């Protein structure tokens, strides 16, 4: 502006807000002579003129309210939705205020709407529960509109009511909603349109005493509330539907409100809708109640992409949105929101029950989705991972890069059957020489190659990367490649700690597995710390009696034994055996368990028996040794039955039994056991000639032969052991020195015999 007049003064003046008469006169005179201000003023007037025309909305009269509907005197309109208008009305006999719901459009409403309406009446009339708004009456207005009279709910909407409440109080409120829904389910009634706006909450104490309709303008302080579920307008009566195929067809269209729809509902599969669809909607409501946001934002998405999101996208855990949400509660919500109905709570009552369990401090039934399950879900979305994993499997199994030409086919198979979790776990077993009898360098090479690719492929998905790298770390550990094992296991643990926190089952898995590595590295204190942490988390997250807790107990027992703390070690191992025996018995009677799972449960028992026997052996008392022998023999029998007589683990068991019999002075028995062990292990590719364990076996056998006064045989065995130890461990390793000393003794004995 070229003059001194500020635009602020001009705006104030042109909008009639200049209170000073002399200032107004001054501006009026100025703009007459100042072309610049004149132009500014014209622009301002244009803008204000346009503003009025742009924002202006044609006047609209208040909707007319009828005096009476049927025998009811209408008091006021409460609101309206897609189906009709709702009024507050007075009923004369009995004298009470009711909510009148009228379908708009008189006689012109569609037959479908009328059917919905009539169904709503029939449905609600059968329900009598404090959490469900009761129906009183139904009829038609003078101009042919359908209406019904229902309980007038004097309450606030669920979200308004809950806004001042803490997590715990919200859960208590929500549990009551579940109870109402469960009551309806038990009577064959689905809601099918559960959402916060269909749930009002009244104050328990004051609801009956208030005379006017309470609108959700304000939120009350913390209080006990009674939810009232409204609008069963789209609910269907299941047994009626069974006899009414036309309703199936019509209800195939999308009903209810999209963000709260279960995948089966959103995808338009009315035949798949059941109580678990309501459980899903309850899950969305609970999610919103706890976080203030929806699990998926589908409001701005097209219908097609909204359906895709609902059917495919995994929700972010509520705890990630609101850190005040406890882990267990987050788990409960995610279980309710599972894509597949069979993975959800099977009823609203089960959902209510788990919430009650949380509130009363009991362990909840829901479990966080397992790593393998999450992997499978994620891999289904990241096809590249699937292909890589299949290639990794192939490399491991085939032991050669050349076989990778089939990777696509295998990957396709893996995708089709969604069995990547099995693929990954098989990988582990396949690469563990004790399980397959093979230590193939090409496996290592493939692993080295593929693990890098996998790690970079999964960079954008750190939790999947952590799961995969945990598996890879275990693979390396099984191959006694401790350095790369450490790299992957440490990454997995750090990532899980950062993203999931210490108190998570997956983090505990990584603690356990890294602990095993530390144990192998003889870093016992670190192993002990990790295992004690893992045990605490596994007990609290998965249960005291869980397989995972038993696994870590077993590890810890072994470690304490090695440290010489025999009493605590024995306690832990006995506890692990007790749990594993129980789990095995359960697996035997569980019709859903397969042979592999049953065998695994049995082998776990054998593992702990073996460890306890080792501990008892170190106690050296005759009683302890006798007990140890019983445990070894049971473990051996289990291994033979489940793994076959030629399995390397069976070879190991023969060896252990042999060592015990050697301790007890039963040299003949010991020799028999060592021979069985050698026969099995020598036959194993990659173990027989080239493993520390076989060297130990040869050394022990040599000792026995010496004790049996057969120094020649002892010498041959000991020389083989020493040769192997020199190669594997070097000349200065204690075990190499041990064999050197034994050889000296044998040489001495030979000389003595000659004399």
């Amino acid at each position, binding site marked *: 502006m070229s003059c001194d007049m500020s635009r602020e003064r001009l*705006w*104030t003046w042109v909008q009639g807000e200049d209170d000073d008469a002399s200032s107004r006169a001054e501006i009026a005179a100025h703009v007459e002579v100042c072309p610049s201000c004149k132009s500014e003023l014209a622009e301002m007037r244009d803008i*204000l003129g346009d503003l009025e025309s742009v*924002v202006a909305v044609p006047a609209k009269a208040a909707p007319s309210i009828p005096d009476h509907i049927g025998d009811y005197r209408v008091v*006021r309109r409460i609101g309206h939705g897609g189906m009709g208008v709702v009024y507050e009305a007075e009923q004369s006999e009995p004298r009470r205020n009711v909510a009148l719901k009228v379908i708009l459009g008189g006689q012109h409403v569609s037959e479908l709407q009328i059917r919905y309406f009539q169904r709503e009446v029939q449905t609600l009339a059968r329900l009598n529960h404090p959490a469900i708004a009761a129906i009183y009456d139904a009829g038609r207005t003078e101009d042919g509109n359908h209406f019904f009279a229902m309980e007038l709910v004097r309450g606030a909407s669920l979200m308004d009511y809950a806004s001042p409440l803490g997590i715990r109080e919200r859960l208590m409120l929500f549990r009551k909603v579940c109870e109402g829904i469960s009551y309806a389910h038990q009577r064959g009634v689905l809601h099918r349109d559960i959402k916060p706006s269909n749930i009002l909450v009244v104050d328990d104490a004051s609801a009956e005493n208030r005379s006017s309709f309470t*609108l959700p*303008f304000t939120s009350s302080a913390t209080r006990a509330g009674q939810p009232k579920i409204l609008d069963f307008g789209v609910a269907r009566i299941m047994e009626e539907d069974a006899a009414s195929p036309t309703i199936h067809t019509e209800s195939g269209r999308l009903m209810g409100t999209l963000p709260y729809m279960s995948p089966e509902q959103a995808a338009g599969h009315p035949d798949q809708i059941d109580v678990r669809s309501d459980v899903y909607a309850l899950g969305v409501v609970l999610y919103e109640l706890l976080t203030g946001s929806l699990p998926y934002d589908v409001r701005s998405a097209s219908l097609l992409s909204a359906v895709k999101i609902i059917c495919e996208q995994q929700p972010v855990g509520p705890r990630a949105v609101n850190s005040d949400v406890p882990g267990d509660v987050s788990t409960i919500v995610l279980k309710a929101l599972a894509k597949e109905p069979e993975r959800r709570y099977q009823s609203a009552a089960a959902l209510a029950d788990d919430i009650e369990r949380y509130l009363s401090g009991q362990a909840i039934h829901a479990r966080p989705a397992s790593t393998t399950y999450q992997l499978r879900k994620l891999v289904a979305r990241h096809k590249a991972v699937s292909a890589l994993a299949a290639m990794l499997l192939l490399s491991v199994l085939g032991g050669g890069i050349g076989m990778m030409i089939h990777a696509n086919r295998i990957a396709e198979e893996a995708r089709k059957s969604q069995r990547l979790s099995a693929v990954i776990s098989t990988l582990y077993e396949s690469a563990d020489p004790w399980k397959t009898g093979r230590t193939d360098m090409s496996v290592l090479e493939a692993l080295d190659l593929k693990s890098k690719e996998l790690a970079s492929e999964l960079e954008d998905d750190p939790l999947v990367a952590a799961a995969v790298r945990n598996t890879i770390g275990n693979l390396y550990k099984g191959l006694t490649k401790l350095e790369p094992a450490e790299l992957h296991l440490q990454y997995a643990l750090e990532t899980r700690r950062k993203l999931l926190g210490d108190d998570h089952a997956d983090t505990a898995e990584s603690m356990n597995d890294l602990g095993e590595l530390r144990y192998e590295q003889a870093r016992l204190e670190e192993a002990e710390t990790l295992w004690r942490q893992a045990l605490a988390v596994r007990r609290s997250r998965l249960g005291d009696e869980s397989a995972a807790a038993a696994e870590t107990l077993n590890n810890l027992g072994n470690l304490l034994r090695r440290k010489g703390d025999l009493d605590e070690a024995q306690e832990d191992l006995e506890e692990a055996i007790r749990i594993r025996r129980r789990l095995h018995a359960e697996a035997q009677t569980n019709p859903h368990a397969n042979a592999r799972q049953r065998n695994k449960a049995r082998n776990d028992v054998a593992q702990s028996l073996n460890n306890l026997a080792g501990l008892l052996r170190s106690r050296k008392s005759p009683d302890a040794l006798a007990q140890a022998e019983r445990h070894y023999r049971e473990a051996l029998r289990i291994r033979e039955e489940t793994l076959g007589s030629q399995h390397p683990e069976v070879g190991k068991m023969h060896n252990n039994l042999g060592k015990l019999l050697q301790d007890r002075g039963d040299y003949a028995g010991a020799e028999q056991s060592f021979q069985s062990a050698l026969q099995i292990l020598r036959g194993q590719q990659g173990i027989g000639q080239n493993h520390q364990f076989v060297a130990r076996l040869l050394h022990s056998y040599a000792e026995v032969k010496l004790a049996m006064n057969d120094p020649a045989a002892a010498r041959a065995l000991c020389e083989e052991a020493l040769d192997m130890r020199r190669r594997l461990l070097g000349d200065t390793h204690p075990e190499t020195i041990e064999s050197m000393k034994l050889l000296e003794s044998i040489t001495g004995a030979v000389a003595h015999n000659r004399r």
Partner: protein
Amino acid sequence: MTNEDTAIIDESALLAGYRKGSDEAGARLMERYWSPIYRFCLSYLSDDALAEDVAQETFTKLASTDEPPSGDLKPWLYKVARNRCLDILRRHERSPTFNRPFRTGFDAAGKTAGPSTRVANHERQELLREIISAMPEEYRSVLMLKHIEGLSRLQIAETLGVSEPTVKGRLVRASEYLREELRKVSGIQP
């Protein structure tokens, strides 16, 4: 006694009657205020049914509240309606700066202008509509209440719960914002 005073006394009587259940008093109040309140709500919510419901809720609250307005009714109604609209928008995670198409009943074509002017006007008004849609609520409310609803500075101050000087300053800033944004996006030099 000024006409304004008479209107307020008249309103007080109407309000008292309405709160006692007089249909006639209710009808007269509705006649006077229902349409502006509905329009005001519509500018926030861009949803006919929702705007109607909020207008209805506002009048229901007027009948049932324990703290009815003691003086001027207008600011009370706008204040209640605005708070409720903002509450709904917050709940629906809609941006309080109204990042959605601005909903009005306006017919963009001028009544008397020729075809080319109509096109220019239409574009300019579309731009203005977009700017208003994206405008901070504190600017938009003050412009709406002043230029569309015709509230006085005192009434606007009561509605928004701020002082009169604040309203005055905000009007200038809001107008200036509008002008700057319009220049920025259109290059139009009126």
